[in-house]
Structures are given as structure tokens and as C-alpha cells.
């Protein structure tokens, strides 16, 4: 009846085989919320859809070695409901809770949000700030890459056509560590980020920042990991001087576009403000986790 084929493999190897053997464009379905929209708009016209949801372990969250393993097709709703994850990685969870509506989160997955490769994807800056890695399966086995290396440009990833993400790892936390994610949207809910900022910090017993990761979304072709922002925070107790340095570093990192949602100047300004505010939340949370 259709020019489109659909397969729901039961194993990772079967999925890789299907992707490798596809005669035309093959698309991986993990949550499907972006893929279905693209199918509907005609932006993508695949010959094959490989639905990964039937692969054991691809949906679910496990605590491993003090960290977390999140299956690639785990829905945003399941992530939002995971109390242990929310306690340790509140920024990742709050970012995931911002993907579309609650209904969209009922299907949408971290892998989809990442591999759709939109600069404005909400979960991505939070995952980058958290130091998350992606486990990518392919014909040659599995490789683990930092999340910030997955997306190479709008709509483009570093995955080969016969590869797909099977899970994400969030590392074990040092004491007094926490993250936060903030985004700016014009509408109160249900909108695409004009700017997103994820901040992840570790403090020492005196409240001085010993490690930090800061990531910005929607201000460049891909989500950015901004080393200068991290450097602004490390060694500080988040005083006004550190905040000013952070703000400046965030602005300097931005290479945004001008569009209906926000001008270049506006996005740059917002990036600085959001980085400050997200840092303040992350510091407060980290201090509370002593």
C-alpha cells in the first residue's frame, strides 16, 4: 500500500542491520514526535522507519555506579517522574520537562531531541552542561561520545547512517554538585527557546566553585559548551565580579541569527542574563546538597 516501510526490530544488531541494508533513506524512530512532524511536512521522505521502541533497555532509567543510564527512547514523561534523577540532575529534568507540551513529552525522547539537531532543543544544553555522554551503536560496535559532539549543525549529526544512540550516561556526582536550566520564550508555555542556558557546578565545602560546565542553546548553529563561562565561575562564590565575567563570556560566545523570535542583539543580551540566573540557581542547589 505504501512506499514507506516500517520495522520494529527486537535487538540493537537487528536495528543496525536494517539501517545498513536500507535501500533509501532510513530514519530512526525513538520518540517520533519530531519525525512525525517532518513526515507530515514532507521535509523528510524516508523509505524505511526503524522503530527502536521494542529493543530491550532502550526505554528506562537505571542507576549505575552512582550515575544514571537513560535509554535513548525513554520518554520525557518518564524522565520527569524519576525522583532520584530529579534530585541529582534537576537541570536535566527541568530541561526535558520543557520539550513541547506534557503530551509531547509523553512520547518525545532525549535521543530524538538531540538527533533532530535543532539549535533550540531544550534538553541539549542541559545534557551538555551535565557532562552527559551518548552511547552510539553501529556495525563496528559501540562508541561513547560527549553529547556536545553529536550535533554538527542544524539538522546534521556525526552519526553514520547505520548508527543510532542506544543510551545516555550521566556521570556520578561529586558532593555539592548541581545543575540548572533556564530558557527564554515569548509565550508563557509551549514555545521554542529563543535562548537556553544550562549550568552545572561543583562547590567545595566553603562554597567556592571547583568545577563548572556552561552550555548555551539557540544562540549558534549548535548548542555551545562555553569554556570561558565555566572559567568565570571556577574559583568564585558567584560574586558580582564572577557574574559579570560569566555574562560577558556568554555574550561573547553567541553567534545567533535574527528572526521573528528575537534579534541578534536581543538574543545576546538574554544569553548573558539567563546564564547569570541559571548559575545562581545551580549554586544554590549545589550548596544545598552538601
Amino acid at each position, binding site marked *: *500500500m*505504501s512506499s*514507506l*516501510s*516500517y520495522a*520494529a526490530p527486537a535487538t540493537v544488531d537487528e536495528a543496525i542491520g536494517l539501517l545498513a541494508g536500507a535501500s533509501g533513506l532510513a530514519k530512526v*524512530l525513538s520518540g*517520533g*514526535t519530531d519525525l*512525525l*512532524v517532518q*513526515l*507530515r*511536512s514532507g521535509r523528510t521522505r524516508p523509505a524505511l*522507519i526503524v*522503530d527502536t*521502541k521494542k529493543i530491550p533497555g532502550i526505554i528506562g532509567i537505571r542507576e549505575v555506579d552512582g550515575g544514571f543510564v537513560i535509554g535513548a527512547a525513554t*520518554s520525557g*514523561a518518564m524522565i520527569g*517522574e524519576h525522583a532520584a534523577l530529579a534530585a541529582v540532575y534537576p537541570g536535566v529534568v527541568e530541561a526535558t520537562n520543557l520539550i*513541547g*507540551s*506534557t*503530551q*509531547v513529552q*509523553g*512520547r518525545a525522547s532525549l535521543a530524538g531531541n538531540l538527533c533532530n539537531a535543532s539549535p533550540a532543543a531544550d534538553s541539549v544544553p542541559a545534557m551538555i552542561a551535565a557532562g552527559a555522554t551518548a552511547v552510539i551503536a553501529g556495525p563496528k560496535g559501540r562508541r561513547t561520545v560527549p553529547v556536545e559532539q553529536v550535533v554538527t549543525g542544524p539538522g546534521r549529526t556525526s552519526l553514520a547512517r547505520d548508527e543510532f544512540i542506544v543510551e545516555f550516561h550521566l556521570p556520578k556526582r561529586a558532593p555539592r554538585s548541581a545543575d540548572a536550566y533556564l530558557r527564554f520564550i515569548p509565550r*508563557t*508555555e*509551549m514555545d521554542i527557546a529563543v535562548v537556553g542556558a544550562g549550568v552545572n557546578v561543583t562547590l567545595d565545602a566553603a562554597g567556592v566553585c571547583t568545577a563548572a560546565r556552561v552550555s548555551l542553546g539557540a544562540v549558534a548553529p549548535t548548542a555551545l559548551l562555553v569554556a570561558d563561562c565555566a572559567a568565570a565561575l571556577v574559583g568564585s562564590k558567584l560574586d558580582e565580579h564572577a557574574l559579570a565575567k560569566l555574562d560577558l563570556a556568554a555574550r561573547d560566545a553567541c553567534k545567533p541569527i535574527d528572526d521573528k523570535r528575537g534579534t541578534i542583539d536581543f538574543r545576546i543580551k538574554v544569553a548573558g542574563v539567563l546564564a547569570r540566573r541559571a548559575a545562581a540557581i545551580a549554586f544554590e542547589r549545589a550548596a544545598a546538597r552538601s
Partner: protein
Amino acid sequence: MSFPLSLTINGVARNITLDDPRVTLLDLLRERLELTGTKKGCDRGQCGACTVLLDGRRINACLALAASCDGATVLTIEGVTDGDALHPVQAAFIAHDGLQCGFCTPGQIMSALGLIDEGQAGDDPERVREGMSGNLCRCGAYAGITEAVLDAQRRLAGQDGRDAS
């Protein structure tokens, strides 16, 4: 190519043979199973008119391939009423005039059921508004919708013997 599907819809187990992988859960319900209470407003997950509960969670039925829902349990607006008695959420929507044209209403009610079950909003109108923001209402019945959800939630909590305040 055909796809055998097992779905439990509104408590009824159904074995369906699908002849086309492109069929969404929404179009399966509306065009092939005569369950037209679930509405199509945008077909892109942007309006929420097609909200159903899939394995107890609210989703946009337009964003799920039917084939991908094999083995799932689906609750649609047609399955909410208990015999002739309206569900408290349905009754509250009428009492608070949480509807005008009614087209978004089945989705609003399914979303409200999901929201109440998630238990995250509490008795806070602000959080109810946030949690119901995946369901557009062009008529602008939001005030009544929020009141209806809060009212129904209180009544349901009372039924469960929990503190209704």
C-alpha cells in the same frame, strides 16, 4: 506489507491488521475505528486536540504511528464515561463552562485526566494552567477549563478519602 496490532482501547482488546505503516494512532481511531471523539486540529502535536492516554500517559495521538503502539492500552474520550454517568472532570467542564465550540474539549478532558493522575499540579491554578498548556482553545475558555480541572481534582481527591483542601 501488513502489520498486526494488538491494542486495548477503552478496555476492549482489539486485534487490528494495518495495511499501511503511515497510519497514525489518531487516524486509526478516527478513520478506521469510528472513534471520532478524538479531534484533529493540527496533526503536528501543536494543539492537543488529539490528546489520549497511552498506557496511562497523555500523548498527542497525531504524533504516534499506530504501528508503534502495538501492545499499548489506549483511553479515549469515548471511554471516560462510566455508563451514563459523566466523569467528574466532564461534569466540571460543563459546570464551569470550560468549553465553547467543544472541538478542543475531548483533548482538554483527556489532558485534565492525565494532569490529575500525574499529581504534580496540586491545587495551584498557576500550575494547572501550565500543565494544560498543551491544549489550545481558540474560543478562549481557559478560565473555565482551569476552574473545572481544579474543581474536579478536589472532588476526586475527596472521593479517594484524601484531604480535599
